[in-house]
Structure formats: C-alpha cells, structure tokens
C-alpha cells in the first residue's frame, strides 16, 4: 500500500503549497515593492508626545531613557511593543481602520499597506477583536497623563471599562516605570505618521 500512502502525503504537501502560494506568497510579492523600514529609521521622527513625556516624568524618563532623541525613541518603541505583545493587548485592540462601517469617521483615514511595512510590525499586530477601540490612529488622541491613569486602572477614566489594570507598569510612587513609559510612547506613536488634521476631524471616539 506504500504507493497509495505516499500519494496522500504528496497530495497534502501539494495542496498546502498551492494554498500557501495563493494566499501567502502572492500577497508577499504584491507588497514587496514597498520598502521595509527599520525601527531606527521609523524612530527618526520623534513624536511630540515622546518629548512631552520627558517633561511629564522627568526623573523616571531620565533614568530609563535619557534624552528624548531618536535613539531613546527607538528603545522605547521596542520595549513598548514588547509590553503590548506580552500583555496580548492585540487580543482586544485592533490596529487597522476598515473602509466600511463608518470607521473612517470614528478613527480616521483608512489603513494602507505602506503604514505597516516596517520592522515594528514584525510580527504584525492587526488584532482579532475590538473590545476596546482600534489603536492605529491613537497618537495624540489622549494626553500622556490620561494614558498613565488609564493603564494604572482603566475604570479611573472610563467607569464602564472592562480593560484589565496594569499596576506593574508603575513604580511604588505610582509613576510609570520603564515599561510604562515605553508603552505610552508606543501607543502615542501609533498613527503619528498620519496627517494630524485628518485625525482631528475623526469624529466621535
């Protein structure tokens, strides 16, 4: 029966490869014309919120990140993204705006592939569920302090919230620690590359 057995193994491999080509390789090839940015080149544009963060929490910021420049921003983006992944934030917050369901009115401009073609999106964080709102247009929506209060205990700023609290992003004085500052920097980076006026006219949130 060896001959027939092998045919099913081969069929499995062939059908897998066919599907992989159609649904995996072809999108990769289509999108391969977009250059991939490194985290360092992404961090060259330091967000105003990152600079504000340095004055909001001067002692802590100096201790963990030094001066708010491109190098420290890259470091903050890395740590912030790792914290976002470790807490699986992406299970309850998506990171793409769809062209339907009034999402451009709620969140801002519809997402394009170029926005994700950087190593901050390795792995991508498109997300799978929206218990909380989409975050890809989050930059500048809220102040750094709002983010700090919200991460410490979400019901402080939104009583209805079902988001978990994250006291381990804060030190014993309830001021954000390295991971806390980095996560705020990361959240304030999401969508910072989009025209601010377009985001400001984003409507209710």
């Amino acid at each position, binding site marked *: *029966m060896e001959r*027939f*057995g092998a045919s*099913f*193994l*081969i*069929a*499995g491999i062939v059908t*897998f490869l*066919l*599907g*992989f080509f*159609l*649904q*995996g390789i*072809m*999108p990769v090839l*289509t*999108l*391969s014309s977009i250059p*991939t940015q490194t985290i360092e080149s992404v961090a060259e544009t330091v967000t105003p919120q990152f600079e504000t963060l340095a004055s909001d929490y001067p002692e802590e910021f100096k201790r963990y990140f030094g001066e708010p420049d491109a190098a420290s921003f890259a470091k903050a983006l890395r740590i912030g993204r790792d914290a976002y*992944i*470790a*807490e*699986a934030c*992406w*299970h309850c917050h998506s990171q*793409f705006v*769809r*062209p*339907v*369901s*009034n*999402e451009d009115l*709620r969140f801002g401009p519809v997402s394009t*592939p170029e926005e*994700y*073609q*950087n*190593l901050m*999106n*390795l*792995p*991508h*964080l*498109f997300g*799978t*569920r*929206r*218990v*909380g*709102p989409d975050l890809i247009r989050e930059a500048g929506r809220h102040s750094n302090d709002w983010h700090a209060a919200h991460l410490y205990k979400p019901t402080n700023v939104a009583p*209805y*919230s*079902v988001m*978990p609290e*994250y006291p*381990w992003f804060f030190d014993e004085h309830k001021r954000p620690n390295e991971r806390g500052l980095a996560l705020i920097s990361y959240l304030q980076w999401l969508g910072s590359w989009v025209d601010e006026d377009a985001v400001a006219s984003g409507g*209710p*949130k």
Partner: protein
Amino acid sequence: MQVAERPLVNLALVRWHLTASAIFMAVTMLAGLAYAFQFNQLYPFPGVEWLSPGRVRMVHTNMAAFGFIANAFIAGLLFAIPRLTRKPIFSDKLGWVIFGAWQLILVLTVVGQLAGYGQAIEWGETPIFVDPLVLVGLVLLVINMSVPIFQTEEPGLYVSLWYFLAAFAWTGLVYFMGNYLPQFWVPGTAGAAITGLYIHDLVGLFVTPLGWGLMYFFVPLLLRKPIWSHALSLIGFWGIAFFYPMQGVHHFLLSPIPMYAQYGAIVATIAVEIVVLTVIVNFFGTLHGRSEAVRGNLAVRWFYTGMVMYAITCFQCAFQVTLTFQQIIHFTDWVVGHAHMVMYGVFGFWIYGFFIELWPRVYNRPWVYPRLLTAHYWMTLLGLTLMVIDLTGAGLVQGFVWRGLSHWGDSVVFSMAFWWVRTFSGLLIIAGQVLFFFALWATARSPVRTPQAVPIGAVTEPV
C-alpha cells in the same frame, strides 16, 4: 518474530493521553472562566501580573487547541491507526517520548505565556523558545504514526487513513509557516496574510482532518455498518484537501491585504462549506436506519451532536465570510461565538465521544455512573448553545452600535448583560464537567473490573 506478543494497541499510551487531555481541558476551562469574569468587572486576581487576563486568555485558547484537543486526538490516533492497519505504531518508546515532550511543551507554554513571553501570532502564542520543540514533537509524532500506515498489508487504505496522512503532511508545514514567517521574515500586511493562513490551517489542516478521520473510524464501528457512500467520502476528502488550504485571508477581510487575495479566500471558503455538506450528508446517510443509536449510545450521540454543530457553523461561515456580513460582525463577539461552536461544539464534543468509548477500555473498568454522563451531556450542550446564541447576539449589537457612531463606551455597556449570560453559560458547562470528572475519576478507581476486552460500542448503558 520475537515481538509477536507486542499488543496491537498500546492502551497505556492511549490512557495517558486521554488523562492529559482531561487535565488540560480543566486548565483551559478555568482560564476561560476567569477571563469571562473580567468582562463582568469581577476578575478574581486583579493587579496580579502573572494572572493578568490578557495572558490568561492565551492559556485558554492554546490549551484548548494543543492541550485538550491535540492530546485527545493523539489518543484517538494511537487507538485507530493500529486497528486500521493491523500494525502497531512504529515504537512504543518513541510514543512515551512524544507523550512526555508534548506535556512539557504545554507546561512551558503556560508558564511562558503567564511570564510575558507569549508570541503575537493568533493560535500560535506558544513562546518563541517552545516553537522548535513543538516542531520536533510533531515530526516524531508523524514518524511514529505513519510507519504502520506504510507497512500495512491491508488491501486498501481506508478513508480515515487518507485524512491522517494528509494531516501529517500539513501539520508541521503549517506550524512552521505560521510561527516563523510572520515572526522573523515577513513584516506588516503580508505577514498578516500568512498569519491568517496559519489561523485557518491550524483548524482546517490539523484539527479538521484528524477529527473527520477519527469520525470515519468510530462512527461505522459503533453503528456496526459501513459508511453510506464511498463516492461522497472521496468528494469530501479531495474537496477539503483542495479548498481548505486556500482561505487564510478570510480572517483579515477589509484589511490592507490585496483585495484579490481577499476575494479568493471568500470564494474558497464558500466552496469548502458546500464540500463539507457532502461529508455531513454521508454521515447522516450512514445513520439512516440506525438512528436509535443516538438515543442508546452516548458516544454516537456526542458524535452526531457535534456534526449538527458542524453543519450549523459551516452554514454560518458561508455567510459571515462575505464582505456584507464582515462590515458588521468582524471584531465582535459573533466571531468568538463561532470559534466556540467549532472548537468546542464540534471537536470538543467528538472528544467527549472518544472518552465515552475509550475510557472504560483503557482503564479496563465499566462506567460506574452512566447517569452522570447523561447529565454532563445535557449541561454541556445547553451551556454551549446558550453561549453561542448569546455571543452571536452580542456581536450584532456591538457591530451596529459601532456603525451607528455611538460613543465607544456604549458598545461596552450594551454588552454587559450579554457578558453576564456568557459567564453563566460557562458556569453551566463547567458544572457539567465537574460531574464528568467525577465519573472519570470514579470509573478509573472503581474496584469492578471488566473481565476481558470490551467489545467496541458496548461500553455505554442505554440512556
């Protein structure tokens, strides 16, 4: 031959995989319950880093797939393949190595995720340092299981073995693709296409073929009649093998992924739902004339309940995959309800059928409390049905509230009642499992022994 007295089926291995499956079922359900309480603002461990709800959710999904379902399916394979091929598995020692390695993988996964090393790949949250171990484990498993299939002297390969062999080819490839490409090589939108493919293939190319293969084995045995139509088996297998692997992008519809990939995924998805109907028709054709077995044999009842759920999910899926439905239901609890109906309502229910049939066999004792098993059936079925209806409704409310541009908080506040019902339905399911666990434990410890090997299909009392 000096190995002549080696038994065909290594029942001890089946026993340990089944027991591990039951233990990880408890882990996944407790994690799910804790997570559900977060949505009632009543999380039992607030502010505890290692028990943060986001991390616990990863434990819930991963232990459902790799702990509960994978262990039970390995038990099923260990039982079915030697009986279908009349050859024992390649090596019993290797079987024990795989058993140990798999449980180690699961424990490392739980610890890694709770410690903050979860990977940002849906259904592949196993920490990066566990992934190589999983791949090695899968390759060993495939070797151990496929050798008897290639050695067999039986005149033809039965349908179950087609599904098993295809699944063996798919599993390692799928796991490698999903856990490595988007993590290390393919960033952004294209990475999302590959992740979508992985999410889908894990269900479609690992769980589904093994599940149907085991159905093709157990159902005719328990009903004591052959499968209704060989032609439909052929259409079902080749249709699934062809269409299932090419629909990954349907997990990211209306995303920045190129539209041709999205349309392709939608068409392939609707095609596979039609193909799957032929499989279901085949099994109900087989049941025709023996339908009293659904009443009299609890394993058969679990199998066919799962198949009804399968028909419902496939019907639902053919609609929810369209861009029309996606506008409203994507990102909502509708999808959560769908996932529970597939992973638990279909494959979980089939696994309960395996337990009913195999547990007395591997422990060599008859079921001591058959009435508890009946109660377990009804509580689980009611609980899951309630959960799916509730989450589907919640999803519609959320989707329309979002589209209506109400304040975001409205979608949360309006969901509160639904989330309470969800918690209640989960408690009902877990209460059923308490009875089930008691029955499992009492049977395993019972002083009454079955004198000889139990004939298949004879272990369940008429209920």
